[in-house]
């Protein structure tokens, strides 16, 4: 188990990593929705 | 019109513009000298300055390179001169080589001044045995920098935000030249106990860099200025 003084560094790494990826993915989804609303005809039939 | 003739004409034009406007002499060289003085203020230690003199010479060269490249293409984008050249059917490789030649000439003058400043201000020592290495270092490094400067200058020319974009693009690219030229110059001048024999491998790197960007630039320049 995580027991040593390294803990903050280790946990910090995981938080930074998954946090950054999650934030980027979220931004992507928001942006996709916003852009899709602006282009009716060209809306790609991805769904 | 052969590529080489185009290159000579373009280089001649750029150098003539420089000769008449004297932007290099009146603005860039004083800026270069100023940078060397500012380094002394920042580092504030004579022995340290002598030890790092080669590095400072090349660092100052990189900063001045940005300014000179901006100028090199500013003369083209004003009045759409570059477009006119393109439309005239001039071989883009020739334009690239010509501008690189003009840039190299201006860089050579700049580096001479910087090296002189290093000898005077930082009390760098000159070792006669390293003279050949010194000249070779400066020639190969200058060639490489000229090719890179022309290529990236062309890429950023006429684009909005190019003043801040050019440094961001160019400085990482010229890092190998900074490393190689500094180490070779240290070897040539005997700084920090280096001997000329340690410098020659770095010349290989500098030559490779110059070859890569010379070839790449000649091929790619056309597509970059085709707007």
């Amino acid at each position, binding site marked *: 188990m995580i027991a040593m003084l390294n803990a903050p560094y280790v946990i910090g*790494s995981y938080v930074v990593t998954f946090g950054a990826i999650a934030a980027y993915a979220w931004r992507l989804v928001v942006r996709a929705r916003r852009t*899709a609303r602006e282009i009716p005809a060209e809306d790609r039939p991805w769904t | 019109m052969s590529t080489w003739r185009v290159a000579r004409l373009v280089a001649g034009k750029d150098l003539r513009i420089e000769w008449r406007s004297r932007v290099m002499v009146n603005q860039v060289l004083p800026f270069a000298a100023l940078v060397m003085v500012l380094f002394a203020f920042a580092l504030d230690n004579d022995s340290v300055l002598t030890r790092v003199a080669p590095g400072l010479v090349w660092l100052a060269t990189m900063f001045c390179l940005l300014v000179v490249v901006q100028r090199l293409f500013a003369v083209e984008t004003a009045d759409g001169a570059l477009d006119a050249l393109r439309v005239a059917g001039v071989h883009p490789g020739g334009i690239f080589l010509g501008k690189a030649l003009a840039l190299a000439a201006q860089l050579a003058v700049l580096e001479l001044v910087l090296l002189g400043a290093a000898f005077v201000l930082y009390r760098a020592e000159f070792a006669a045995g390293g003279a050949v290495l010194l000249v070779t270092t400066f020639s190969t490094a200058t060639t490489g920098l000229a090719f890179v400067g022309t290529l990236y200058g062309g890429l950023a020319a006429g684009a909005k935000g190019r003043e801040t974009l050019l440094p961001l693009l160019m400085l990482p690219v010229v890092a190998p030249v900074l490393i190689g030229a500094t180490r070779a110059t240290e070897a040539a001048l005997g700084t920090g106990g280096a001997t000329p024999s340690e410098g020659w491998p770095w010349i290989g790197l500098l030559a490779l860099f110059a070859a890569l960007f010379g070839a790449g630039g000649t091929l790619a320049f056309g597509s970059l200025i085709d707007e």
Partner: protein
Amino acid sequence: MTPDPASKRPTSTQFSRGLGAAALVGSAWLLLFGLFLSPNDRVQKTGVRIMYIHVPSAWLAYLAFIVTGLSSAAYLWKRTRSLRWDRLAGASAEVGVLFMGITLVTGSLWGRISWGTFWTWDSRLTTTAFLFVTYIGYLAVRDLGGTHQQRARRSAVLAVLAVLEVPLVHFSVKWWRPLHQQESVAEGELKGLMLFTLFVGLISFTLLYVWLVLHRQRVMEMDDARDDHGLDLALAERRNEALEPR
């Protein structure tokens, strides 16, 4: 412009949803094994747990840039020229910058634990930092404006040059600092459960990469379509003005 009821998830397909689910499951496994189930290293103790995300993100960052380089080359070659390649290059570069940033941060934190410093000038680290800055410059160039083709051409040339520069930078730094005493400690032998965890990391990050690039590229396609659409609208308006009875 009628609101499309399906635009809750405008860029997702069945495949991408499945992919996303798999990526989430993989990430959960990685968290489980990385933080809890895998054992501590003999030498590095808990520090090795950072490796389970540092190594995969480095691997993906390099993969992303290779993809950018290849698709840029594909765009430049006349026979395969298509804006599809340009968008793939841009999407991959953006995700690559993300993973490269993660690599540098996690590597830095690991270095703090193992070597005592956040940074050292060894060739791999320095080349990674160089690559990071280069691709930020690449992304800046993509935003310079102009037509889609101009953007594609400029950034494609830049990407190909960047791929050629990397070995130059790598070797110049390597010759500059030939003694990397610290490097030996890093990738010792990872056996058993630790090796398994590393694989979990690699697989889940690869899934994440593909999902992110897929969506980023689709958003780019929509952006381009919107730009074109906007142009068509403007042209139509001008034409209507001309036809208006006066």
